[in-house]
């Protein structure tokens, strides 16, 4: 445990050093947030939807604030795979999967805190219908935070799956682009899942991508009633277990066929 905790702490600290990236990220995500809200307001002006616009704006801001949790893969780890420094991690008395998993946790957690907190403050200062609304109920907030935990575990597991695939292809770009596309489309990052047709939503809400941020956000906005929380959390936990299982399987298979190239 000590090793995992220690590497977690180290990665947290490293993340705080990238202040330039933090400012760039905030500017970019605020810009995206404003554009998306403006876009949906324009859509509502012509063609109102059953979901209130305040919910959509809140949904957009929460998604943008936690964007860093969603898509980022650790550039250090990708470098390690490319340049072979991964050799060193392979001769440590730890589980490789969990060693990298906690690194992803630290990177995503610190990265999104550093960007998300200033952004959420900014978004809550915007006028009604443009910015972040308070949670639907205190219970909703508590349950949303609770749902963020399995959601976060799923996100880290997905990052490790990407990493596992990169170990095979050696180049992360192709596979990352593809997985990020799926992620952005089906996690509700661009188009809130609440705006998809009902029949689509029934399927989408069961996919792993809906467990990440969509489920916690809907508990926050009251889209999902607190009474549904148990079912939602169960689906999330099942997915977390599946994704971790798949990732571990892939990593173990990788270990057996591993080649470290270039001497």
């Amino acid at each position: 445990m000590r090793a995992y905790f220690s590497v977690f702490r180290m990665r947290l600290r490293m993340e705080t050093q990238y202040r330039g990236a933090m400012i760039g990220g905030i500017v970019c995500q605020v810009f995206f947030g404003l554009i998306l809200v403006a876009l949906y307001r324009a859509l509502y002006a012509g063609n109102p939807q059953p979901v209130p616009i305040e919910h959509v704006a809140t949904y957009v801001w929460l998604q943008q604030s936690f964007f860093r949790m969603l898509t980022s893969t650790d550039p250090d780890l990708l470098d390690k795979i490319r340049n072979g420094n991964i050799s060193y991690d392979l001769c440590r008395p730890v589980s490789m999967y969990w060693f990298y998993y906690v690194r992803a946790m630290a990177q995503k957690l610190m990265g999104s805190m550093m960007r998300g907190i200033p952004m959420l403050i900014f978004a809550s200062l915007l006028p009604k219908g443009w910015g972040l609304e308070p949670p639907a109920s205190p219970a909703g907030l508590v349950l949303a935070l609770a749902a963020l935990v399995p959601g976060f575990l799923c996100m880290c597991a997905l990052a490790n799956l990407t990493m596992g695939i990169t170990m095979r292809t050696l180049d992360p770009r192709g596979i990352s682009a593809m997985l990020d596309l799926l992620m952005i489309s089906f996690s509700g990052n661009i188009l809130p899942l609440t705006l998809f047709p009902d029949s689509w939503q029934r399927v989408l809400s069961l996919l792993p991508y809906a467990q990440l941020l969509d489920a916690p956000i809907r508990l926050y906005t009251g889209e999902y009633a607190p009474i549904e929380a148990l079912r939602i959390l169960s689906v999330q936990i099942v997915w977390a277990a599946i994704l971790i299982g798949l990732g571990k399987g892939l990593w173990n298979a990788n270990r057996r066929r591993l080649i470290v190239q270039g001497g």
Partner: protein
Amino acid sequence: MSYIEVNGLKKTFTVRKKREKGKLFREKQTVEALKGVSFSVEKGELVGYIGPNGAGKSTTVKILSGILTPDGGEALVGGRVPWLERREYVKHIGVVFGQRSQLWWDVPIVDSFSLLKDIYRLSAADYESRLKELTEALQLEEFLRTPLRLLSLGQRMRAELCGSLLHRPELLFLDEPTIGLDAVSKLALRDFLKWENAEHGTTIMLTTHDMEDIAALCSRVMVLGHGQKLYDGTLPELLEKFDTVRTVSVKYDGALPDIKLPEGISFERGENELSITYAPSVFPTAKLLATLQEAGRISEMTLQPENIDRLIAAMYKEMDL
């Protein structure tokens, strides 16, 4: 039974070639990196492992450090199979890859060390005393709080070595540790390795292209080529086999006397200096020296064995590598 027992170790890699014109699929080519290598190493030995690039040296090290799984053969190190019991096994070994880094780039090196302390579950007291010992021996005290990226290559390699030895491994693999180092750093590194080996009885297996490393450190050398072991023994014996040519330079007081040398010995005449290249097997050194001395009053003389790198090159050529 020896500490390291390797028996018929095999490893093949598949290389996909670029698709040729007119063919539907890319051709695959298998490269046999190791074709059945066997050796054994006793505890406390300092073994050099040499061979040209691509001979399979690093592959052997990677298999023995539990990173790669071989395709065939057996290996037992301290009673364990490296790739089967990886997590338990790696607690007892240390590895330094000369071309890679295990320390964190942006943080002070002491923080990387303290992460290693947690990874290997060292007690605080044990860690402190070992860190003190290593930083003294490697002269690292003044850099402990410096981020890795600000260190020179020589300082970095010393830091890497310190990181690999914190958990007091019984066995240390060094894969080209002196690559790119300046003379002072190389000498310091060699002194340190000798000290670590003598002080703690750490078994060391070293791959290198620097023959001075081998000459200075290793009592035993193994030559690997084309995935096979070609030689296993001492360095002097190895050199003797291929040490065919020597050069003598003599300076005489006054003019160069006329010297008669047997056929087949090449020499260059200078103003008052003579440089002779000869093979001791054909013309014994003692006889040559006597001839030279008879000819006149010698003021200065140097006798040089052939350059060690050239010898190795000749040896690789003879072994068809």
